[in-house]
Structures are given as structure tokens and as C-alpha cells.
């Protein structure tokens, strides 16, 4: 995050767009290839695991639907936070950015619960129903935890970024002109959401099909 144009002429760029905004777009383009490769790996190995647990044994669509709803809703909070800062309404910005971050943390909580639940074997009446699923168990475990883990890491970075902006706003520096700082975080946040929009159907909805 560079807060002042380092070049005297950066205000008059060739395209008229701030360089930092172009940078975040280029970065997201690169991220598309990153997640694209992870998703491709997942798809290549789909159904190739030699031993269980298999996707249909562990994935819980209702629970993950709730966490998906939470994450997608956070994008609305992000939009309202950005709208707040562009109006110059710092308190609206603080309210909404905090809510967005909290929704992100909720999503991460769901993911932590999910990972913990998957990793432990399930017993019923003292009888083993399924083994635990870890990254070492089978190809599904390796690809699933790597893909969703990297997504979770991106959400974590996003939450830290949003909370930093929240804290920063109390130093009185995040004025209306500083809306670009929020804009960049928002683009990143929406992107991370969109990645989940791909992961949820590819991994969960298709995964539980027989």
C-alpha cells in the first residue's frame, strides 16, 4: 500500500487511472492463474483416490452452504464500506468494514471447524464409521486441503487487510481521497469471494455426486 504517489506525475497517468488500481488488477490476473492451476490439479485427481474417505463421505453441503452464504454476504458489506468512504462518512465505513471482516472471520471459523471435523475419524456406538481425512490420507485429501487452504489463507490476508484499514481510519488519515486504499482492498476481497464461487460447486456440489 503506497499512500502517496511516488512520482510527481502519477496523478496524470497515461490511462487516467491510478497506477495502484492497475496493479491490483494485474495481481488478480496472476491470481486467476494461481487458483486455476490449483483447481486444475483438483480436477485432474478427482475420483483418483485409491482409498477413502471420498468426497461424499465427508462433505456436508448444508453446513458449507451456510458458510458460503456468509462469505458472499460479506461482499455486500464491502460495497457499503466503500460507498461510505466515498461519501466521506467515516463512521459508515468503519461499521461496514468491521462487519465485512467479522463475516470473513466467521467463514474462517466454519473452515477451521470443517478441517477439524474432516481430520478426525467418526465413531458411532463405538464403531468406526469413517477414517479421518488429512492431506496425507489420499489424493482427495492432498488436493482438497491445498485448494481450500490456499483460499482460506487468502481470506485471512483479506481480514488482516480490512482490519488494518479499520484501525488506520482512527488515525484520521483515511479521508475521502484515500478511498483508493479501500477500493484496492475491496477488489481483492471480491476476487477471493469469486474464487469461492468456483470452488463451492466444483469441490462440494459436484463432489458429493455418486
Amino acid at each position, binding site marked *: 500500500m503506497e499512500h502517496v504517489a511516488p512520482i*510527481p506525475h502519477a496523478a496524470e497517468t497515461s490511462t487516467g487511472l491510478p497506477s495502484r488500481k492497475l496493479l491490483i488488477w494485474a495481481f488478480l490476473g496472476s491470481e486467476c492463474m494461481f487458483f486455476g*492451476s*490449483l483447481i486444475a490439479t483438483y480436477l485432474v485427481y478427482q475420483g483418483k483416490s485409491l482409498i477413502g474417505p471420498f468426497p461424499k463421505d465427508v462433505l456436508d453441503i448444508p453446513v458449507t452452504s451456510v458458510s458460503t452464504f456468509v462469505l458472499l454476504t460479506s461482499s455486500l458489506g464491502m460495497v457499503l464500506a466503500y460507498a461510505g468512504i466515498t461519501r466521506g462518512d467515516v463512521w459508515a465505513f468503519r461499521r461496514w468494514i468491521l462487519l465485512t471482516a467479522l463475516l470473513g472471520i466467521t467463514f474462517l471459523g466454519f473452515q477451521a471447524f470443517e478441517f477439524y471435523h474432516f481430520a478426525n475419524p467418526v465413531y458411532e456406538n463405538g464403531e468406526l464409521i469413517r477414517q479421518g481425512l488429512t*492431506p*496425507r490420507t489420499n*489424493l482427495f485429501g492432498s488436493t482438497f486441503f491445498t485448494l481450500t487452504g490456499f483460499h482460506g489463507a487468502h481470506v485471512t490476508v483479506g481480514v488482516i487487510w480490512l482490519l488494518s484499514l479499520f484501525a488506520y481510519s482512527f488515525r484520521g488519515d483515511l479521508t475521502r481521497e484515500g478511498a483508493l486504499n479501500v477500493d484496492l482492498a475491496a477488489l481483492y476481497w471480491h476476487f477471493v469471494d469469486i474464487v469461492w464461487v468456483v470452488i463451492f460447486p466444483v469441490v462440494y456440489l459436484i463432489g458429493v455426486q455418486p
Partner: protein
Amino acid sequence: MTTVTGVRGRRAAYKWWWGWVTTVDHKRIGVLYGVSAIAFLLVGGIEALVIRLQLARPEQGVVSPDTYNQLFTMHGTTMIFLAIMPLSASLFNFIVPLLIGARDVAFPRLNAFSYWMFAMGGVFLNSSWFLGGAPNAGWFGYANLTSKAYNPGFGIDFWVLGLLLLGIASLAAAFNFVITIINLRAPGMTFMRMPVFAWMTLVTSILMVLAFPVITVALVELLFDRKFGTNFFVPAAGADLVLWQHLFWIFGHPEVYILILPAMGVISEVLPTFSRKPLFGYPVMVISGIAIAFMGFSVWAHHMFTVGLGPVANSVFALGTMTIAVPTGVKVFNWIGTMWGGSVRFQTPMLFAVGFIAMFIIGGLSGVMHAIAPSDAQQQDTYFVVAHLHYVLFGGSIFALFAGIYYWFPKITGRMLSEKLGKVHFWIMLVGFNLTFFPMHFLGLEGMPRRIYTYSQGQGWDLWNMVSTVGAFTMALAILMFLLNAVRSWRKGEQAPDDPWDGRTLEWSIPSPPPTYNFIAIPTVHSRDAFWEQKYPQGGEISTGIRGDAGGRHIAGGTAHTALGQGKEEGHPGVHMPSPSYWPLVVAAGITLGAYGLLYSLLLAVTGLAVTLVGIYSWSFEPAVKQPKGKLGKDKKE
């Protein structure tokens, strides 16, 4: 933009070596990149010489088989990631802002970060030599040669983490140059007026932005396999080892164009200057470069013809690969068209440029031979491939980069390189290069495999291997001539005028070496070859008789010539350059510490992470220019 009072002070300037450590000036960073890349070129070259000594005669024992594996792995990795790419980056850094009429890159501190990350990644990778052995699975690191079961040492971990560090550096640089070229062009510098080197920098940077994440994923999967016991490349768990090859070459083939497109850009600047003619067919040259990059993403499986992907896949990839020869051929013909009828001066940069064309054609032709899948099945893993790749990467990239070094050395240092030594360097290198690599075509066709430690007598390989080794040492002599020339000329060479070659582009309109701010006033551009149009406003090109030349359109708009780089710029009384910063260095150091930590101790890894976070936050909240007086008592004058 906001006015920010940062949590930390920032000085306007530092002195002497601390000035280099904290610099964010694109010119200084360019010099740092260049000097480091030459140093790594020497390391990779010495590794190559040891390889050639080992292969000079049959049944040699100069090094052990294991050391030999480490040598060829590190030779390839070093030359690609630590020599050719940073040499290109050096020219991107120094020259591109000058070519487009900018005062610096879009993100000067990110630029410093990419250099430090590269330098530390290079040192990290090479430190493996002293920490239990270098990587030994080839620069392509095919799974499962790299698995913990078959390769238990730290070598592969150094390779994986080293490439990840270098990937971060390349991505940071690539983002910076994409944005710089899109957003910091001087007024009037439309895309189709940009010098071709700036174009090829843009195309190369976009390739890096899109290709490096793919290798990152492959390396991360391999790292997880080795560190956490995942199953990505474990056949016993049902894994398909070909996945590594796909991911690697989806990065690896664009990487080939990341190595050659900057070279093509350099040639497209040097040839017009020394032919005193505009580049022949400028728009076609630009579009061909874009086409090569675009197609480069869809031909990766030609590295995998013998894997058994099936006849349909092989045919598609073979046809795609052959198609790339079309825009490449267009470029070659246009370079020849540029020289045709020009008043050609064979000074050293021009010799290297012409040498590039000749050598690159040979490499290109053997490349088309590889594109024919059935023929490739015979050539796969033989010295024929080694010959091909060295003709495009050494005869191509390195020759062109030397053309660029000889061409821009006066601008970079303010001194002329010795023409005499330069010409001697060129001829010795041309002879040595062909002595080394042409015989490898014969060796390959006679069936000598790549990456073998030694060979037995009586297979007909003895003579050509000896010739090749003699050639390698001849090239080493040529490189020594260059080093001698560079060091002597830098210290006490002839003073370089602003425009020693009667150049065509904006960098020649400013002093040699350029002042920190590059241009006193940002120039306004009215045509391609902006500086030439200013010097010779009456259409001063030599009449060539070639119709349809891009030069025909140069006159348009040529009346409103303001003296470039002179005169007052309205509304900007002073030039404020970004202040130096050491946080990029701190972040790079933190990441490198973290990488060592992953190998040796959790505590070190956590320390690295902490240093990185402190660095990122301090960087973010650092004011862009120095603090007002009073906050930092020790500040020198701006």
C-alpha cells in the same frame, strides 16, 4: 492522493554504499541487476566449463556422478533464472523508463524489492553448494526424481524454495513493468509509437504475470509432498506424474519466450540505429511479438511428445508449434528488411545483432525439426536438443543481450566501451560458440544422450566432444575479454557523448549518464523514433527505395517539434523524486530467512515471518517523500 504523516521518518538521501542499498532509482537498480546477473553468468559459466571438462574425453573422472548431476541442474537453473532473466531485467530497468519518457517506474520501492528478492534468491539457491549439496534433478525437476524417497537431501528443497523466491522477484518486477508501460508514457507516446523494446518488455512482463503462478503451484505441491507428506506426486497413492510435466511446461514454454522476446526487442532497437533506417514494418513487428507470446501459451506439450499423450494431442501441439515459426520468421525478415539498403555501420552492437539473427535462425530451424513429433521422438533427450536450446538461448538471448550492453553501456556509465576489444570479443565468441554447440547436433544425431556423466570409447563421440570442450574454453576467453573491456572502460574509458550512435529514441536526448530525474521536462512525443524526428525534422532518413516501409508515415505530425527534454514544464516548478527506502530490503531478507527457516528451524521461520510482516507494515505506512524538517533531525538536504 492523501497527505500522510507516516509512523516512521524517511530520509531524502543516503550516502555511498548505503545509497545503493536503499536506492529506489530505476537506473541504479538496473545497474545492480546487471552486475549481479553478470556475476551469476560467470558462476553458471564455470559450471558449464566443468561439465565440458568431464565430457572432453570418454571415461573421465573430473567430478563424481553425483556432482555432475548437481552441475547440470545448477547450470540450467542459474543461466535461466539468475543470468538471462536478470540481464533482461537490467535493461528493462535502466532503459524502458527512458524509452517511454518517464522519470521512474510506477512503483520504485517494489522495484527495489524485486531486485533484493532476486539477489537473495540467487544467493539462497547457490548456498546449497555449501549446505549439503546442490539440487540434482535437472532444471525441470521432473517428478518423482524430486520425491523425498529418492532424493532425501536438502538439494531439492533449496531448488523449490529458491525458485519460489525468484518467482516472487519476477512477479514483482513484471507487475511493475506492465503498469509502468501502460501508465507512465510521456504525452503523445501512444502504444503504436512506443519503441519495440518497450513493447517486448510489456509482452514479456504479461507472460511472467500469467506463467509464474503456474510454476508456483507446481513447486508448492512438490514442497508439500516433501514437507508434509501429501500425495501430489506419489504414484502409490494414484498420482499421475505427468501432472508435474504439464504444470512445469505450461510455465516452462512461456518462460522460453520470456527469455527470447526481450532479446528480440533489443535487436529491434539496435538494427535501425546502425542501419540509419526506421524499423521495417513496425506494426507487424509488434503484432508478431504479441502473437508469439500468445501462441507460446498453447504449445507446452511439445516438450512431452514422448510421454504418450496420444496422436491427436501430439498432432495439435506439433501444428501449433510449427505455427509459431510464422511470426518468428516475419520478425527475421523484417530485421533483414531493416538493414536492406540502409547505411549499415558494423560497430560492436551491430555485430552482435547480426550475429544474433544468424545464430537464432539456426536455432529456430532445429526448433521446427523438434516440432515434428515423430522426428522429435528420435531427438528427445539427445545432444541435438542441447544444441538447439543453446542456439536460441545463447546464440539468441545472450548475443542480443550483449548487443544491448554494448549499445547502452555509454548511456548507463557515461563511458564508451572499447570498439577494438568489443570486436575481438564478438569474433572470439562467435567462433567459440559455434565450436561448442554445432558439434552437439552431430553428437545428438549419433545418439549421445543428454545429462550422462560419461561415455565409453568407440561410439564416434570422442572427436566432437573434444571440439565442443575447446569451443567452451574459447567462449570463456571471449567473456574474459568482455570483462576486461567493461572494467577498463568503466574506470577510464573515453567519455561518452549524449548520443554516440546517432540514436533514434528518447534515451539519447538526455545526458550520459542520465541525471536522477532523467528528463528536465517530460518530452512530448509526436512520432515513432521521436528523437530522430527532432534531430532531422525534414524526414532525414536515407532514401531507401523500399515502399511500404513504416518510415513512410513518420513525417506525419512532425512539424510541432519542441526540443525534447528542454524548456520549462508548466505547472511543475521542481522535480521531486521518490526518497530512498530500506524496507524493500527488509521484506526480501525476511522472506529469505523464512525460507531457510523452513529447512532448518521453526524458530528461524517464525523470525523470518515476523521480519517480513514488520517490513510490509513499515513499507505501507512509510511516507512517500522525506518528512518535513523537525521530525528527523539528521536529514540532509533534499
